[in-house]
């Protein structure tokens, strides 16, 4: 299944109206592979990483693989940009820095993101991930994205 960029942008615009982001995550094979879901909750957009055994990095604890938390945080940041930016463009990741604070247990993980600065070319976004207790983050990230429209790239 191929979803064109114009179709993806249309799905994002519709999701902003409906508060239903599943048509957007459904268009991303990796989001389905990992179990990433974007969900509007109480006026904010949250990213949920549904636990599955294939996400485990250390079975003896068990703990989630660090890469899965990095992907969750990066996705939360991208979806926050898609939700908030004036004209929808697909952000390109420049850099992501992930801090790991606690091991991720074998349950669902949530993430939220806030846009620290949205410039003409670059957006800086902070994201945080938690499990049962939002005040006890398990990981956080700072990410920078190129947010150029197609015309700007030419």
């Amino acid at each position, binding site marked *: 299944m191929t979803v064109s960029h114009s179709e993806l942008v249309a799905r994002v615009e519709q999701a902003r109206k409906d508060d239903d982001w599943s048509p957007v995550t459904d268009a991303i094979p990796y989001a389905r592979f990992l179990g990433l879901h974007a969900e509007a909750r109480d006026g904010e957009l949250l990213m949920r990483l549904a636990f599955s*055994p294939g996400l485990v990095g250390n079975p003896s604890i068990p703990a989630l*693989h660090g*890469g899965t938390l990095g992907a969750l945080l990066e996705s939360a940041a991208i979806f926050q940009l898609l939700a908030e930016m004036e004209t929808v463009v697909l952000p390109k990741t420049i850099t992501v820095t992930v801090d790991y604070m606690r091991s991720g247990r074998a349950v669902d993980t949530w993430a939220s993101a806030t846009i620290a600065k949205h410039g003409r070319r670059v957006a800086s976004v902070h994201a945080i991930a938690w499990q049962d207790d939002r005040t006890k983050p398990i990981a956080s990230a700072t990410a920078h994205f190129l947010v150029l429209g197609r015309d700007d790239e030419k």
Partner: protein
Amino acid sequence: MTEPIPLPKSRVLEIMNQAFRDGVPHNKALGLEIVDVGPGEGFAAIRLPYAEQLVGDTETGILHGGAITALIDATCGAAVFMKLAKPVAIATLDLRIDYLKPATPGRAVMARAETVKVTRNVGFVRALAYHDDAADPIASAAGTFMIGTKGRSVAQRSKRAPDDGSGT
């Protein structure tokens, strides 16, 4: 200290890949394969095969950044592990990844990580991801790892090892 009995590299890789994949479900899910290691030298090279399910953008077929992140995290961890005198569990403390250019659709991605310094508590690593030429990288990364965390490492899991008391 006694000198370790040298094993052929292919046998070392075979043993390591078994523990790496069977012991770490997410490595197996991604299809990661260790292609080179430097025991005692602190380096590792790992291959991520291209797969449709890891695509982030179906119009271009480009892999999602998350899959590259997981590849780099696993490779950095393996490099630190190679530098340890005895196998203990390690955990990522932080990881910065710079995305230099998109991966080419349809091609496997390699990551190669080298430790910069490994102390009793912390391992410092640098890594590059590329297709076949490290001089033309897709991503570069720097990470730190805590050494000796709760839980047993992949290598310890095969035989129950006592806690070495070096928890975080």
